[in-house]
């Protein structure tokens, strides 16, 4: 049951790393999308209804917490699973993320293998 996965990071290099870590999922039929900021992320989520979103916390304007809270507040998008990408050791971030309703956290620097394993698990891919 491959689905759709959205990568959100304002930093192009990190976005590319995330994409490259996850691109093998495309072989399993997963559709990979990406967005470069919070607004684009919200638009894409509302339009494409991804199953899983890897969402960077630190973004200008609309940050990851805001996007997460908005997604979880909307009955149409509430079921989208959100994985927040936070900086290592930012416990405060974690608490804010919990308040915003995030499903999971991964810390940066992320382990590419963890990232893919997490995506596979959330997408229900063996």
């Amino acid at each position: 049951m491959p689905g759709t996965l959205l990568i959100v990071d304002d930093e192009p290099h990190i976005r590319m790393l995330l994409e490259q870590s996850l691109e093998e999922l495309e072989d399993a039929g997963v559709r990979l999308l990406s967005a470069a900021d919070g607004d684009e992320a919200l638009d894409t989520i509302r339009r494409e209804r991804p199953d899983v979103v890897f969402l960077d916390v630190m973004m200008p304007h609309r940050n990851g917490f805001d996007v997460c809270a908005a997604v979880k507040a909307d009955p149409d998008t509430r079921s989208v699973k959100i994985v927040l990408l936070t900086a290592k050791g930012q416990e405060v971030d974690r608490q804010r993320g919990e308040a915003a309703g995030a499903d999971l956290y991964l810390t940066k620097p992320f382990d590419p293998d963890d990232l893919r394993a997490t995506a596979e698990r959330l997408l229900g891919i063996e």
Partner: protein
Amino acid sequence: MSREPGARPSLVRLLPRHELGALLDAFVPLSPVRRWRVLDTAGAALVERGGEAHAAADGAGVAPLVTPLTLDGEAIGTLELAPAAPLDAGHALLRAAHSVLEQALAAASMRRELASETLERYREVHLAYRLGEVLTGGVELAALPARVLDEAVRVVQAPYALLVLDDDDAGGRVAAERGAEGSADGAREVVAAIRAGSAADRAGIDVDERPEAAAHAVRLWAPLRAGERTVGGLLLSRPAGSRVFSAGDAKMLSALAAQAATSIENARLHAASLEQARMARELQLAHEVQSRLMPTVLPSSTSWQLAAWWSAAREVAGDFYDATRQGETTVVTVGDVADKGMAAALFMALTRSVLRASAVDGRDPGDVVTRANALLCADASDGMFVTLAHAHLASDGTVRYANAGHNPPLVARADGSLERLPRTGILVGWDDAARYGVETVRLASGDALVLYTDGVTEARDARGREYGEERLVELVRDHVAARRSAAAIVSALRTDLAGFVGDADAFDDATVLVALRGSGERVSTSQAPGT
């Protein structure tokens, strides 16, 4: 789990469709080309741009021009132009489009390689974080190897993993194993391989093509090195025909092995220091138990005033003294087991008990020691001997004694003269048939009998000089002549000996017992053992 190194990414992975399309869009208006297409190696169109201005009628019969798109000399797709009119294959437009696409592909490829390297760094950094958390979180030595293997198979996928520690004489113990349980033959194979790998100072990769090695044919190992020492090794294996481990895998396993080795070594040192602390506690306990074997109150009387001192070079001693009363007779003993440490202490305790049990029924000192020797020879393990000075002090001043290989006790007279009481037999524990004679000496009021062990006379100062019998004799003689009490003589000896030895480490146990012939009127004092 990491990407197979060297595998060429597909064209569409290098340049997504929208980027390919954007590049073609730049060329479309420039040419009388009916259709532009980029195809992958399987011939599927990844992107297509039609020049609508030149609709179907134009050039329908003109053959398309096809040129391969290559990366590092390898074809990864095709650029296809369907011109509206016959076009030279070397046409500038075709060359330009081809060149732009290939350059874009080369740039994308380089970007990917950089990204791959960055991802590899991410893995390593993440591994370092994880290992820091997993391995330094107060993990016990016994649980560490399994944790290390869990991490190893997590970062470098393999169905089988093994951790060997070089902590026994057999040269390698399987401390943890993952997967392929029960394949004992295979395990032996890999143990041999890891030992070969452990001898080297770096990770290694190989493929064993022998049929009997099929279960573990593809191997990767890394030594566990703590400082300059190889403390074991890690090995991962895959069955024959599996993907060979990559240099990146080797690097990851090496990074893990380096941290694991340090953690294992630290845990080992920690365990050793705990064990040492436990031993120290037990020895302290043994010291206390042994101290209690020495009489805390000596049976002084108006006839004999007793004082003694005992000091252990280590936590436990082979020296001892004893003093009991049997009717009107005071029985005193000083002994020295010919060794130090725990075994000597146990033999000392045994000797004391056997002597006490033997010194009954008015046996003379020679018979007591003869009897004790026979009993101790039956019980003593090889190489355990004890020298004894054993004396029976009668209230009239008569001293009957046996000297079993012990350094001669001194009799210091109040008039300043001195006698040494010679041996009456060999050391105890040597010959179960040995017999010990008895000698008699009479002490007048104010005379002193001094029993001591060689730890007193052979005590050394920091420069290695011996205290010596002469200095002991002088001290005793002076104090007896000065009519000092038994306790005062012992105390003076302790002080003098301590001053002589200074900061030097005590090498041997030291014991002294002084029996001063009383006037029959004086109230005696006694002294408890001290260290």
